[in-house]
């Protein structure tokens, strides 16, 4: 099976060949490196930019204005914080011009902790991003979704931010990307650049097929009547583990929703599940003050307050200025499995 980062690469290849992608660019995105996480190796429209995130976002906007279809990368979401004004402007171009101009850009960036990234390579971006009106924000937690969301991001004529969970980039999925070769070795041999000299290397792209994960559609990855767990990105697999563990331990099964789209989010799926279970756990790793999960919680309070059986919970990262390199810091700053499991146990077992 492809890794998440290979899936992104395959999607970009499909985008170049079939969806009109004209420019894939950013710092170290082009040859020889093809991205610090290898997401852009071998792509024919990939190029290296100056070290200037404002230039990257601005240029992407310009390319889109002129009819191109850019996919820009911010190397780590942690380095996108000097572009928030531009992201706001990109999000308002259609609105401000009363429909004169669309802004079909895709920005992709690795987000979250889990790679021992210390202060400046561990931040999460979704809470900030969710505040960017006019944008759509997606975040896959597995390779197939990464492929399908990337294709949707490219096709959508609005600005779409694709957040890639840093911790899961090298994780393999359970489902094949349509057209993916049978063996991992073959895929690797065909599309991973070799170590060392790459000047004569060319990828041999498999003939991947269109597959769209709609924007705004969550995936119900576990089903149950006892509680609703809502998550995405790095914490999603942890939530699955916690739910499986607790199903085993308590016999109680939960719905686990992989949100996939941060905005617009799949309110129908959330609402249906909460109505069914009356018990809610929301999990993410962004800092906990003015956290996107608090928005979801507010919506649930707005519409399902009287259907809640027990106090709904949010598990998120601590409101501290950074995530320290020593793993003692990281382990005690962003949610880990035991914390999630304990919270879910409490949600499941608290008396109504």
């Amino acid at each position, binding site marked *: 099976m492809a890794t998440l980062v290979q899936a992104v690469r395959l999607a970009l290849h499909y985008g170049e060949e079939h969806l009109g992608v004209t420019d894939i660019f950013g710092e170290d995105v082009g040859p020889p490196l093809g991205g610090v996480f290898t997401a852009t190796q071998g792509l024919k429209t990939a190029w290296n930019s100056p070290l200037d995130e404002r230039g990257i976002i601005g240029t992407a906007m310009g390319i889109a204005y002129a009819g191109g279809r850019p996919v820009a990368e911010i190397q780590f979401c942690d380095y996108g914080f000097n572009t928030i004004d531009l992201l706001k*402007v990109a999000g308002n171009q259609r609105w401000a011009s009363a429909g004169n101009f669309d802004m079909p850009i895709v920005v992709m960036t690795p987000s979250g902790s889990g790679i021992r990234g210390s202060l400046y390579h561990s931040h999460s971006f979704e809470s900030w991003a969710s505040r960017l009106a006019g944008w759509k924000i997606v975040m896959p937690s597995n390779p197939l979704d990464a492929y399908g969301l990337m294709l949707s991001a490219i096709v959508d004529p609005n600005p779409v931010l694709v957040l890639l969970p840093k911790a899961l980039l090298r994780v393999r999925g359970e489902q094949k990307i349509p057209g993916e070769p049978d063996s991992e070795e073959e895929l690797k041999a065909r599309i991973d650049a070799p170590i060392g000299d790459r000047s004569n290397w060319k990828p041999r792209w498999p003939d991947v097929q269109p597959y769209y994960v709609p924007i705004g559609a969550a995936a119900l990855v576990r089903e149950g009547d006892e509680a609703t767990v809502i998550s995405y990105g790095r914490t999603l697999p942890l939530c699955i583990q916690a739910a499986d563990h607790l199903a085993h331990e308590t016999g109680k099964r939960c719905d686990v929703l992989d949100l996939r789209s941060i905005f617009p989010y799949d309110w129908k799926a959330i609402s249906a599940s909460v109505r069914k279970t009356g018990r809610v756990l929301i999990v993410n790793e962004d800092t906990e003050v003015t956290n996107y999960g608090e928005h979801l919680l507010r919506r649930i309070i707005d519409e399902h307050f009287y259907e809640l059986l027990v106090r709904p919970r949010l598990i998120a990262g601590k409101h501290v200025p950074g995530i320290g390199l020593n793993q003692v810091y990281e382990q005690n700053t962003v949610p880990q499995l035991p914390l999630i499991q304990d919270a879910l146990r409490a949600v499941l077992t608290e008396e109504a």
Partner: protein
Amino acid sequence: MPDKTSTFGSEGVALLVPEVRSGREALPAELCLDIYRLMVRSRVMEERMIKMSKSGQGYFWIGGPGEEAFNTCLGLQVKKGHGPAYDYLHLHYRNSATLLAMGMPMIDALRQMAMTATDPHSMGRNFPGHFACRAWNVLPISSVVEVQYVMAPGTALVQKRYGGDGITIVTGGDAGTAEGDFASCMIWSTRPGNELPVLMIVTNNGWGISTPASTQHGEKHIIDRGKAFGIRGEVVDGNDVVASWHALRRAMDYCRRERRPYMIEAKVSRLYGHSSSSGAQRVWDEVDPLDLFEHKLTEAGLLDPIVLSHIREEALAEVEAAVEQVLREPMPQPSDVEKYTYAPSPVDVVYPEDYTGLP
């Protein structure tokens, strides 16, 4: 009397037309009269808008009185159209004369001033002078100073790839060049082997709101900053129509032909202060390009008091008719708040058509 035996600009084609000179450069009389008429129309329109901002027919005014000479010459020389074959315009909020010269009906600027639903630039959402015009590649003008300079390389990159002679024109004020985005534009436009046809214009009025440029800027000329990047440029008296015309012509020729960046620093005036926030009072110690040109045309025998007042009357009548019309037009409705947030998308299950409130 206009000189009758000279050449049009520096192109060396001998034409027997009357012309107007400034130093060694000249422009045909016909063109000068067109420019003059456009300058008057811009001025009259802006002054009417100032009045509207004071009388409650609008809330805020910002615009370009003092930049008419340069901006009219710019607008007339733009290669106007849609798509990368034509020029892209990343403009500043003082560019009404550019748009009028391109052919924008006066009434459209006034619609934005009056915030009507018919305002084609922003549907009554944005400040005056914040144009957006898809048919002419005029990208949405934003109040955020200098961000246009980081977008310019993007349109130029597509144009370079596309071929043809379309160029990207970006304009901004002098104070704004202190933002890093100005430097970014130079860097992204001069990547070795990927030089871009960006015409970087700075309309230098010597002020950023209340702050004199001389207190904040150590550069002698802003365009000197381009030298390290091999960007050619020139400083021009933006109050001089003939000089502005030719500086723009040279710059555009260069960008169109060489597919490389060029800089123009136009020294311009700011005749009504920064905006209505600072009172929008007429300033009398700055050169008025309109007076200057009027004088020049009169000297050259192309204008006389009768023609002059006729042109002005015409413009005044035009603006009054437009204002009258605009004030009868519909206002945006509460239901318009969310309109045009999203373009229709085949892959979005929540907002397939447009934003409709929270999911």
